């Protein structure tokens, strides 16, 4: 067989340590191990890890586990429909929901402040005042041009306009 480390199949070492190889694969792998020091060392280490993990025993199940569970189930069955609706607002759930709600409220407030018409109003006023001045100036210019066009060179009106 190909070396698992070189053939991009290192998971085989884990399966070997876990005892998950079938007889055929196990025989082929053990044959490979006898001629491959790298795989042999890694496999020995993985076996050691597997054994080390055996040290970790979980605590025993408490004797009142079922009683407490059935008492909670019973309490749930006695809930009225509005209490069932309010279940997401249980203190434990609120711990998760509150930060999200606060963030959403902040974003909403920020959006409202940025979108307020008052914030845009000064710019509009400025634009209006600029436009009024421009109109006045344009009217003056037109009046002056009218005077020019009405006055013919050599006349008293032409001399007054100049």
């Amino acid at each position, binding site marked *: 067989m190909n070396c698992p480390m070189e053939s991009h199949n290192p*998971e085989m070492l884990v399966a070997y340590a876990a005892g998950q190889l079938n007889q055929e694969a196990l025989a082929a792998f053990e044959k490979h191990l006898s001629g491959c020091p790298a795989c042999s060392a890694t496999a*020995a280490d*993985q076996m*050691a890890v597997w*054994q080390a993990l055996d040290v970790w025993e979980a*605590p025993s199940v408490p004797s009142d*586990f079922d009683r407490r569970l059935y008492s909670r189930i019973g309490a749930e069955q006695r809930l009225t429909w509005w209490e069932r609706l309010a279940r997401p607002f249980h203190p434990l759930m609120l711990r998760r929901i509150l930060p999200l709600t606060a963030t959403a409220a902040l974003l909403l407030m920020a959006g409202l402040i940025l979108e307020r018409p008052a914030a845009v109003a000064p710019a509009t006023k400025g634009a209006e005042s600029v436009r009024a001045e421009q109109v006045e100036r344009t009217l003056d210019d037109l009046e002056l041009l009218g005077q020019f066009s009405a006055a013919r060179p050599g006349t008293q009106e032409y001399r007054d306009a100049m």
Partner: protein
Amino acid sequence: MGVVAAALDYDAELMLRVKDGDGASFALLLEKHRASVIHFVYRLVLEQAVAEELAQEVFLRVYRSRASYEPTAKFTTWLFRIATHLALNWLRDEKHERMQERLDDGPPDLPAREVSDRRPSVEDQLMYQAKLAEVRRAVAGLPEKQRAAVLMHKYEEMDYVQIAKVLGCSESAVKSLLFRAYETLRARLAHMGRI
């Protein structure tokens, strides 16, 4: 798939009976999976009281979901998906500081060891506690998904396909996840097995 899963998986069949209002089937499921759920959650969160509370929540959710239950996968896949989700959420809420505190304090809730031929000496107990603390620290140091995968693989004896379904990733991703996790553990724990 639903019909096939129900045919192959006796637990799924029991759950379908719970759906039909059979409380005795729920008691059977609880009896069968109670210990493995508590142990799995305990090894993830490292606190016995929290593990018991979360395990209660797991079974409560199973019971609450009975009406909408469809056997689209193995029952244990569904069960451990709920357990993993709850435990990892709890860990994210608690952050790493508390986890580190618990590791530094040492295991406050050591399981009672039973040695058949003789009572363990004080030295044996100290040795055992030191080894246990080292294993707990090494596993707790793994990234969340790797940790959950190792616990399901090593202690719950789940296969790659089932772990992939619980974690919501591909089978090849689980193989790679497990290999990286065991490589990290090899660097931290291999010396223990050789002693």
